[in-house]
Structures are given as structure tokens and as C-alpha cells.
């Protein structure tokens, strides 16, 4: 540990450099976004070692990056960003993670805290019933044989065509909820079997539904564009991923990459970093399957959001139009994408891995929905159960420094069993209720594992991202009800 303190070079108040000579084999230096106060935790967690390991991967450009919510992962740290040249670089399933396109979306409403609060118990019960959640949850949707291929190809569009949501939801979803170049044949039969019964399920772990209230607005004009008008306004979050389908795709291709590394003579310091050239058959097949899994996750969130809308309108006794339930945005935080970035004054095609990191594209970027193009891409940073969440916007600085990326959440700080030793699910429930947060959870032990104390304070994380200029604060929300998977 003392070793790290001397190795990390302070660049400025928000940036720490891991020099390239820290470990022989690093192709680029590492760069960690953090405040001085957060460093000790990051070092104790051995996350910098993982940042250094990622710097070994062929074709990596500029830096192996770590966002301020960095914590120990497997292979890549959570909060890791790495971009590899498409021409001679690699793609690594470990740089995406097992929950492909785990992500979050937020809807605005026309209702206020004062209107919703009296019905909050009823609302949370209705949400809990409407959205299947918990370990091994099965969905309300029965797919026809072969229909899973449609889900993989069309993502959100499949859901909307089936009647889950509205066409305009697609406009405010990253990638329009439908990544192109998907061949379902590259997704194994096992993955499809696991995914088929789980479309429209929340899952477990840190996945949740949340009723939040706008608590602070930092940028009035940008907030207004998003449909955030006032403090006290109610918003609704959905956080989940690609379920067993995504996990199986990751498993299948990590195995494939193990073989590919021998074939292409690639060596990595940790087998979980297994990879193959982006342009190799193995790399291409993985990217195709991963995009399919990403589309599955978007379809999943789209269906869930539809049920959240229905339940909300029913309990509140308002029509959908009157309720103003519009999707502000949907972001993914576990993904690899081929993007154009400027490297040494010329455009380069890169495979950008974001594992527990969010895209943060600047104003004017063609991939930002027309509605938001003048202000930059909306970014959603959910905190933990008891604390704030943030809505940010992408910046030019992020484009220059982090391949248009920023943090994704609070970042874990305490292990699950450490939390369970300290607290019971009931303790957490009472604590949250005493702070005016209604909770429904699939399991009490799951609740203890996800206690707010397990996480870094999201405010510190966001302040670093804002301070470093890789995103800007737009608004803050506070939870009043949470459904935990």
C-alpha cells in the first residue's frame, strides 16, 4: 500500500497518474480521476493495480482510465475506461463485464412530491407487483419460438412494436436502444434459453426502481430541456441489465478469447482480461453477440418502464398524458463501442470499453439526440438507496480526455458480507423509512447488502467528475421510494 502512495503522481486536484514504468509491459500510463480524500480507499481496494493491468492490452491509446467511482472489479476495475485502436487493438469481454448493458433510465413526470407522497405506500406496492424482481425472476412476457432473435436485433424497437411504450421513447435512448450489426447466430442457444423467460425482469443485486424527487437544479436551462422544471417534481428511475442472456454471452466469449489469445500470441497479466483483436473473427463475433445482449437489455428496460408508467398512472389516478411520463434518457454503463475519436489531431476509429462508466458526449455531437444536441448528452448517476442521484451533461473536455466518458454511480466501498455483519435488512429498512424512503425488497439480506453505507458518497464522485470537467451537474434527485430486486 505505501508503495502505491509513492507511485501515484498527482497531476492536479482531480487527476492521478500511474506512470508507464510502474510495471513492465504497460503500453500507456494509467489515469485515475479522484480527489485526495478518495485515494486511500481506492488504493486499499487495489484498484490501481487493475488500472495498470489494463494498460497491457494491445492497441490501447492514451491512458488506461479510471473514473472517480472506481472500485475493485475482476480484470478491469469497475469504473474503468479503455480505448483500443480498431486497426491493431483488442476487444475484451472483461472490459464490458458480465451484465452487458447494465444501465439506467429516468422518466420525468408532471406530478409533485406533495401529490405523490400520500400515496407512496400504494405506489411502491403497485410497482413491486408490476415488475418481476429478485433472484431468478421470470417475466410476464412469453416469447414465441425464435422471437428472442427479434429482441436481440431490434432492442427497444421490438418492445415498442409489441406495445411496451411509445415510439418517442426510442429517440431518447442511447443508440436508440438498438445497436446495429447484430447477428443472433453469434449468441449461443444457452444464452437465448436463459434470456427467453427473463425479458421484462429487474433481477437482483444493485438493480432497482426508484421514485425520486428533484432536490436541486444547477443548470436551469439544461434542466428545462430535459423536462425538469422545478424542485419537488417527481421522477422515476429504472436500473437493470441483460440478465442471464448477457451473463452467458460473457461466459461464452471469455472462453473463446482464451483460445484466441494463444492463436494470436497475446499475453495479459490477468486471465479475466482475455481478449482478441477487434478485427479478428473472434473479436467481431463477440461484438456482434454483445450488441445483441445490449439490445436485449434495452428491450428489458423499455418493457419495465412501460409497466412503471401503467402502475404510476393507476395509483395516482391520472392519464398518461396528464402525468407527463416522458423518458428523459437511458444510458448504458457496461459496453464496448466502436467510436471515432481525435487522437494526435486525426480521427481514429477506437473500440471504447466502458465498464461501470457512462458515455458523456459533448454538445453538438451527432450521436446526442437532436433534443439535447445544444447542451450535451444527459448522464444519469444513480446513488445508493438512501442518498442522492445526479443528472449531468456531457462535455467537450470529456471528449478530449476520457473518450467522452464519465462515472456511473456511487461505487462500492464495503463488501456485501461486511454489510450483513454490520446491519440486518430490518435495520436498513427502518433507517430508510425514518428518512422518509419507502422500500420494498425481494429479500431482507439483499437489502442489507445494498445498504447506503456500502457505497461511496455519490456527491464526492460527482464533484470530481464536475470539477475535472468531464461532465457538468444539471440536477440532483432524492429518493422517496425504492423497489430493490
Amino acid at each position, binding site marked *: 500500500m505505501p508503495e502505491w502512495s509513492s507511485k501515484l503522481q498527482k497531476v492536479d486536484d482531480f487527476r492521478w497518474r500511474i506512470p508507464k514504468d510502474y510495471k513492465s509491459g504497460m503500453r500507456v500510463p494509467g489515469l485515475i480521476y479522484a480527489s485526495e480524500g478518495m485515494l486511500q480507499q481506492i488504493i486499499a481496494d487495489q484498484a490501481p493495480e487493475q488500472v495498470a493491468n489494463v494498460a497491457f492490452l494491445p492497441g490501447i491509446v492514451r491512458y488506461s482510465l479510471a473514473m472517480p467511482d472506481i472500485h475493485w472489479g475482476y*480484470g478491469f476495475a469497475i469504473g474503468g475506461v479503455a480505448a483500443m485502436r480498431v486497426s491493431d487493438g483488442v476487444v475484451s469481454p472483461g472490459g464490458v463485464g458480465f451484465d452487458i448493458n447494465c444501465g439506467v433510465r429516468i422518466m420525468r413526470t408532471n406530478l409533485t412530491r406533495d401529490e405523490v407522497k400520500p400515496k407512496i405506500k400504494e405506489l411502491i406496492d403497485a410497482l413491486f407487483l408490476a415488475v418481476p424482481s429478485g433472484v431468478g425472476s421470470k417475466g410476464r412476457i412469453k416469447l414465441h419460438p425464435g422471437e428472442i432473435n427479434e429482441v436481440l436485433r431490434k432492442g427497444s424497437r421490438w418492445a415498442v412494436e409489441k406495445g411496451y411504450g411509445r415510439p418517442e421513447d426510442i429517440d431518447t435512448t442511447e443508440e436508440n436502444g438498438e445497436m446495429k450489426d447484430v447477428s443472433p447466430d453469434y449468441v449461443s442457444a444457452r444464452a437465448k434459453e436463459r434470456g427467453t423467460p427473463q425479458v421484462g425482469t429487474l433481477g437482483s443485486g444493485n438493480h432497482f426502481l426508484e421514485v425520486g424527487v428533484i432536490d436541486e437544479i444547477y443548470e436551469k436551462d439544461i434542466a428545462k430541456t430535459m423536462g425538469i422544471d422545478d424542485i419537488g417534481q417527481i421522477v422515476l428511475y429504472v436500473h437493470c441489465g441483460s440478465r442471464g442472456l448477457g451473463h452467458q454471452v460473457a461466459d461464452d466469449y471469455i472462453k473463446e478469447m482464451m483460445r484466441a489469445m494463444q492463436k494470436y500470441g497475446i499475453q495479459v497479466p490477468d486471465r479475466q482480461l482475455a481478449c482478441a483483436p477487434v478485427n479478428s473473427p473472434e473479436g467481431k463475433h463477440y461484438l456482434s453477440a454483445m450488441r445483441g445482449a445490449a439490445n436485449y437489455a434495452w428491450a428489458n428496460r423499455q418493457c419495465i418502464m412501460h409497466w412503471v408508467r401503467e402502475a404510476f398512472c393507476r395509483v395516482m389516478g391520472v392519464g398518461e398524458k396528464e402525468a407527463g411520463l416522458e423518458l428523459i434518457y437511458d444510458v448504458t454503463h457496461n459496453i464496448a463501442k466502436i467510436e471515432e475519436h481525435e487522437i494526435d489531431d486525426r480521427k481514429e476509429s477506437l473500440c471504447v470499453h466502458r465498464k461501470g462508466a457512462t458515455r458523456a458526449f459533448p454538445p453538438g455531437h451527432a450521436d446526442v439526440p437532436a433534443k439535447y444536441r445544444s447542451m450535451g448528452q444527459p448522464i444519469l448517476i444513480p446513488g445508493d438507496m438512501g442518498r442522492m442521484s445526479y443528472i449531468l451533461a456531457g462535455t467537450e473536455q470529456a471528449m478530449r480526455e476520457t473518450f467522452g466518458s464519465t462515472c456511473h454511480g456511487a461505487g462500492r466501498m464495503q463488501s456485501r458480507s461486511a454489510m450483513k455483519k454490520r446491519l440486518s435488512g430490518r435495520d436498513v429498512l427502518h433507517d430508510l423509512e425514518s428518512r422518509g424512503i419507502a422500500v420494498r425488497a425481494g429479500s431482507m439480506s439483499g437489502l442489507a447488502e445494498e445498504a447506503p453505507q456500502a457505497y461511496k458518497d455519490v456527491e464526492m464522485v460527482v464533484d470530481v467528475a464536475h470539477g475535472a470537467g468531464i461532465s457538468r451537474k444539471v440536477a440532483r434527485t432524492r429518493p422517496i421510494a425504492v423497489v430493490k430486486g
Partner: protein
Amino acid sequence: MHVMKKYELIEHTADIGLKARGVTLAEAFANAALGMFSLVAELKNVCEKESRHVEVKADDIEGLLFEWLNSLLYYFDVDMLLFRRFDIMDFEDTRLAATCYGEQYDSTRHSLRMGVKSATYHQLEVNKEMNTVRVIFDV
């Protein structure tokens, strides 16, 4: 008599893992599976009502452990099967065949604990001398 612990849990910030041991390496593999299912659910009320024959292949012994555990997670996802006993019959470096016993999850009698997404290769270790294995899960 000294009773050997079949497995113990390993702590990591965002994830959880285990170290399992056995008199033979095959037994260590079986105990790793037992440890994994004890993370997924409380196993004391799980009966041996159903069984599945599971065969897995891999390029090496580490890959075999990865494949073995993830294959069992597949049965949980698809058939909601909770296994509590694993008879490993054939065991080589690159393949194993086992019969796994347990029953389908029943919400009235069983309590689930956490969703295990996958075994990972991170710090995965198979020690043939000590008959121990180590694996970290993504949960």
C-alpha cells in the same frame, strides 16, 4: 476428529468468492459448487428430488472449473434448480461428468440469497497438490 471445512467465503468489495477443498480435486470441485449454491439460496430445506447429469469440457483445468460452475448457474436460470449434492464420476483435466441432486426453487419453502451472475477467471486458482480451488463470482 478434525472436520475439514468444505469451503470458505472470500471477501471482495463488489464481489464475493470462495476457496473450496476436498480429499480429491474432484471433491474440491463439488464443494465449490456447493459453496456457490449456498450463496444463491439457503440450502437446508432443499431436498434431493431431482437430478441432472452434467458434462463439461474445457481446454485446461482452470477452464474446467469456470465451465463447471457456470453450467450449474445455467440450470438455475433455466429450470430454477437448486443443487445441494454433486457426485463427480469422471474427472480429468479437461472434462468432467457429474450427477447433481437438488430440487426446483419453491418460494414457500426456500429462501433465495443473492443472484450469482457468473464465475470469473479473476484470481481463479486450481491447486492440484493441495486439492483446493479458488474462484471469484460476479454477483
